[in-house]
C-alpha cells in the first residue's frame, strides 16, 4: 500500500469505487461541514474537498478535510497551483498528512479572473503535473523537491484530473499518460455528459495500456434543472454538454427535471460499471449533497464495501 487510504484499498481490491465532493463554506462555521458530511457518510468511499473552487474564497481545503477526518470520514484533499508556491505546497502536504489526510487531488486550479478576487496575483510556480511528481517524490523518495531528506515523509494516495473533452482532443490521452508517468495513482475526470467522446477516450487509454497503470474514476454531475444544463453547456470552460441532455430535461415538466437529471446520471453510472478501464465514479453533486444517498441507492452502489 502506498498510503493505506480507504480509497486505495477499495481500488486495489478491484471494487468499483465511489467518491463524492463537498465544497467548503464561504464562512468560518465548522458545523456547515459536519452537516454536509452527514449526507455523504456511508454513501461514498472518499470525499473530495475542493480548494477555493472557481477561484472563490472559501474555508481552506486542509481545514475542511481535517473536519471530515474528525467525523470519521475520508477526505480527498484538493490542492491547486494557483495560490501557492512550492514552499507553501510542501508545507501544506506535511501538515495535511500530520492531520490524518491520506488522499490528494493535484490540480492547476481555475483561473483567478473567473473568481471573486479577479485583482489577485496568480502563482502557478509549478503546474499540476509537476505537483503530482512532487507529492510522489515526497512519498517514494522521502525527499523535498530540492532533493533534501524529509524526516517523516507524507504518504499520500495521489490523484490527478483529466478532461477528455478539452481541446486539442488528440493530445488529451497523452496528457493523461504524462500524469501517470509523473506519479498519479488515480484519475478523476471532468463531468461527463458526452458519452460518445468519453468512450473514445477510454478506448484510447485502454489501447495505450494506461488503464492498467492508473485507476480512472469517471466524473458525473447530476443536472438539477434545465437551467443548470444550459448554463453548463454555454458558460463552463472545458464542459461538453450535448443537446440530448438538454432535450431530455426539456421533455419533462419543471418539477420533474431534478428526477430526470438523477435518472440520466444513474444510467451513466450503469454504463461506467461495465466499461473496461473505468474503476469507479466520482459523483460531484454540486451543492446537492443531500441528494447523494438517493443517487447512489438508485445507481445500485450501496452498500459501500468495507476493506
Amino acid at each position, binding site marked *: 500500500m502506498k498510503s493505506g487510504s480507504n480509497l486505495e484499498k477499495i481500488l486495489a481490491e478491484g471494487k468499483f469505487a465511489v467518491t463524492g465532493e463537498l465544497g467548503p463554506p464561504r464562512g468560518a462555521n465548522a458545523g456547515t461541514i459536519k452537516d454536509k458530511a452527514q449526507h455523504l457518510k456511508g454513501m461514498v468511499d472518499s470525499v473530495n474537498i475542493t480548494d477555493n473552487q472557481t477561484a472563490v474564497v472559501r474555508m481552506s481545503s486542509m481545514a475542511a478535510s481535517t473536519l471530515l477526518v474528525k467525523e470519521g470520514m475520508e477526505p480527498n484533499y484538493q490542492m491547486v497551483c494557483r495560490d501557492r508556491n512550492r514552499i507553501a505546497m510542501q508545507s501544506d502536504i506535511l501538515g495535511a498528512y500530520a492531520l490524518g489526510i491520506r488522499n490528494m487531488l493535484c490540480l492547476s486550479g481555475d483561473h483567478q479572473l473567473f473568481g471573486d478576487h479577479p485583482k489577485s496575483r496568480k502563482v502557478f*510556480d509549478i503546474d499540476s503535473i509537476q505537483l503530482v511528481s512532487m507529492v510522489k517524490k515526497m512519498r517514494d523518495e522521502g525527499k523535498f523537491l530540492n532533493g533534501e531528506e524529509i524526516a517523516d515523509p507524507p504518504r499520500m494516495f495521489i490523484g490527478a484530473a483529466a478532461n477528455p473533452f478539452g481541446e486539442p482532443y488528440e493530445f488529451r490521452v497523452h496528457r493523461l499518460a504524462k500524469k501517470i508517468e509523473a506519479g498519479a495513482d488515480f484519475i478523476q475526470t471532468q463531468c461527463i455528459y458526452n458519452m460518445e467522446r468519453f468512450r473514445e477516450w477510454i478506448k484510447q487509454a485502454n489501447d495505450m495500456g494506461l488503464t492498467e497503470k492508473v485507476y480512472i474514476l469517471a466524473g458525473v454531475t447530476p443536472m438539477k434543472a434545465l437551467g443548470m444544463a444550459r448554463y453548463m453547456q454555454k458558460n463552463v470552460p*472545458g464542459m461538453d454538454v450535448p443537446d440530448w441532455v438538454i432535450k431530455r430535461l426539456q421533455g419533462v415538466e419543471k418539477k420533474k427535471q431534478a428526477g430526470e437529471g438523477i435518472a440520466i446520471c444513474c444510467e451513466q453510472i450503469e454504463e461506467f460499471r461495465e466499461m473496461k478501464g473505468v474503476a469507479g465514479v466520482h459523483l460531484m453533486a454540486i451543492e446537492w449533497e443531500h441528494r447523494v444517498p438517493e443517487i447512489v441507492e438508485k445507481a445500485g452502489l450501496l452498500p459501500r464495501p468495507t476493506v
Partner: protein
Amino acid sequence: MIVGNQKSLAEIKEIVAPYKNLLILGCGTCVKTCFAGGEDEVATLSSALRLGFKKDGKEILIQELTIERQCEDEFIQEAAENINSNDAVLSLACGAGVQAIAKRFKSVPVMPGLNTTFIGILEKQGLFTEECVGCGDCRLAQFGSVCPIARCSKKLLNGPCGGSKNGSCEVDAETDCAWQLIIDRLKALGQLNNLKAYVQPKDWRSSNAGGPRKLVREDHII
C-alpha cells in the same frame, strides 16, 4: 519591443498639476513604434494639456523634446539642458526610461506618462500582443517557438489545461490558447514528441521572481 500605453489625460493632468514649467520628454525607440511615446505623441499630448489647463484657467509652460532612447546615457545627456531648465519631466518612455532619467537628475521630479505593459509585437494594425516575460531562461526551442510562460494564462509547462476551446483560452475567447499553438506548430514541424517528456519545475531565479536582476558582462567592463 517594449509596449506601452499612454495614461488618460485626466490622470496625467493630476500628476503634472503642481508644476508650472514642464518638459514632456518622448522616447524614439520602442514606445514610438507602438504609438505611445514618440515625437508625434509628445506633440499631441502637449497640445491637449495646454488646452486642458487653459480651460481650467491654469497657466503651464510645456516644452517638448524627444530623444532616441531614454534608457541610454548618450541620448539622455542630449536632454540635460531641457531637463534642468524645467520644474519637472513627464517622460513618455517605458518604466526603464523614466527611472534612467530620474537616476541622473536627482533634483528634478520625473513622472510617467505611460503605463508600460509588456514585451510584445504588433500582431496586426491596432493590436499588440505579449510574447515574452523576460524569464531569463529561454525554452522556446522546446515549445515550437511559442512561449507557454508568457502566453498560457496558467503558465503550464506540461500541456494544455482542460479549458482550451476552438483554439481560444478559457480566460478570454479573444486570446489564443498557447498550447493549441504549440501543438499545431510542433505537429507541422514533426516535433510533437517534444511534448511527451515531463518538463521539470522551472528555476525562477533567473526571472523577476528572484528579485531585481543584473546582467554583468565582464567582457565589456573597462
